[in-house]
């Protein structure tokens, strides 16, 4: 009888165990996030390290963000032109491109690109430091690794993500103009007028709120995965590669899920 009951409960046990692990990880990640944010505002001692991180995460990502923004805008301009012109509404091309970019695509694609370029590097860097005892060495020297390693990255993400999102917006709207107006013949004046008229402050603000939220999420997940790489099943280089993969996958999923939630709340 007890065996039968055990068999009946097995799927629930497994589900409960997964849920508990998820909640445990979520709790640990929240504490990790609060700890890192605490040190972001703890003083100017980390300023030079934050500037270096801004250079790595922000400045060195400009070219890739420009490329992605340009092609996304060009595709959007082309697709919307074909769709709108079929019922004579190609005058709204600027509206379509501007709203889709500012509200959705710019924050999401910028965050996903930065996850791939900078987030994975953050996980790998911290992971290697963990397995080569560099984090232990910092701890022994009474240098808090959260303050020394994670907080500058968090500060850099909070500054870089919104700026790069704004940059993506500009390039993408120009890309839409390039295909919609220059290649396919939509009216330039109407395009720019619609871009200006259709965007409200709430749209721009919403896009920036998303960028900030994604910055915090991506940085927390990527640094957390690297920091606790030694607690994964596999240690050593394999553990670091596992953490890096996990950080990128989790970040991308969380970006899209958070995007849905934020869109529901903001508009």
């Amino acid at each position: 009888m007890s065996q039968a009951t055990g068999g009946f409960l097995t799927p629930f046990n497994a589900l409960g165990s997964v849920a508990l692990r998820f909640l445990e990880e979520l709790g640990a990640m929240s504490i990790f996030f609060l700890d890192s944010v605490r040190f972001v505002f703890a003083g100017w001692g980390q300023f030079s390290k934050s500037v270096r991180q801004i250079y790595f995460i922000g400045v060195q990502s400009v070219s890739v963000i420009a490329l992605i923004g340009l092609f996304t805008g060009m595709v959007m301009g082309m697709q919307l032109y074909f769709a709108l012109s079929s019922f004579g509404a190609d005058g709204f091309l600027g509206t379509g491109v501007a709203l889709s970019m500012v509200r959705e695509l710019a924050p999401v694609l910028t965050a996903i690109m930065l996850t791939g370029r900078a987030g994975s590097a953050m996980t790998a860097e911290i992971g290697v430091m963990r397995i080569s005892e560099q984090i232990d060495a910092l701890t022994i020297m009474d240098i808090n690794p959260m303050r020394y390693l994670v907080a500058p990255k968090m500060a850099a993400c909070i500054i870089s993500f919104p700026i790069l999102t704004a940059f993506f917006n500009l390039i993408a709207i120009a890309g839409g103009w390039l295909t919609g107006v220059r290649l396919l013949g939509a009216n330039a004046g109407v395009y720019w007028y619609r871009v200006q008229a259709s965007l409200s402050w709430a749209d721009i603000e919403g896009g920036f709120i998303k960028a900030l939220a994604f910055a915090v999420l991506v940085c927390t997940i990527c640094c957390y995965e690297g920091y606790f790489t030694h607690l994964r099943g596999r240690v050593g280089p394999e553990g670091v590669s596992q953490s890096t993969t996990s950080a990128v996958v989790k970040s991308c999923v969380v970006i899209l899920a958070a995007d849905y939630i934020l869109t529901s709340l903001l508009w």
Partner: protein
Amino acid sequence: MATAPGIRLESLTVGYGKTPVVSDMDIEIPGGKITMIVGGSGCGKSTLLKHILRLHQPLRGSIFIGGHDVFSLSGKAFRCLRQRMGALFQDGALLGSLRLRDNVALPLREHTRLRESQIMDIVHHKLELVGLEHAMDLFPHELSGGMRKRAGLARALVMDPQVLFCDEPTSGLDPVMSAELDQLLLEMMGHFDMTTVVVTHDLASMRTIADYVVVLGDGRCLFQGSVEDLEAQEDEYLRSFLDREAPERDTPRLTMPPIDPGMMKLNCTQLLGEE
């Protein structure tokens, strides 16, 4: 804590997760001396060291450094204790993104109000002590294993610690370099009032510089005392460890014939013109 503090382990059991690695240790490490923790591979020497450094929580028991319970001290009091410790890790554990001088200067920049010129003077002196003053501007990946280890020692010494912990300081070093490192530790002990705890496999080093020895094995502390007392021990495990004797085997070990050259994917015999 004006003089070099002693370290006391009381009923200490260390391990990972819920699995004990070394159990029920009652060890008294004397202050101002060089204590060496020795034992076979995987016996828990480095694990014990990491627990003493409070990098891990023990399963049971207490650790006292200079009379302070390491796991009861909190906040700034524990930070003070930690700033009086230095640690040399197996591979040096230098920060890969910093040049050697910045690696060594890091604790001084973080914990003192010294001017940059004063910090650089100290860094230069400590690197000179380990013979690396010429490598100040190099990054860790540009150093050999032995140089990384010596650089790690310079960093461990930069705050003039009262307790120095070294994890396998001579592993991977040639005999001359090992002897030099031993000599350096002895010189430092003569110069600074410092307690040094060294985890090692190196019996030659133990016989040269240890004042006190702790032997771990079989999941427990097998011996603690002076080198002379250890050498006089009759215990079978200790004797085989000290005399570097492998256990005798009844059956031959090499029973498998070599791989038939005909089974190699590349026909090396033909390619190299061998008969």
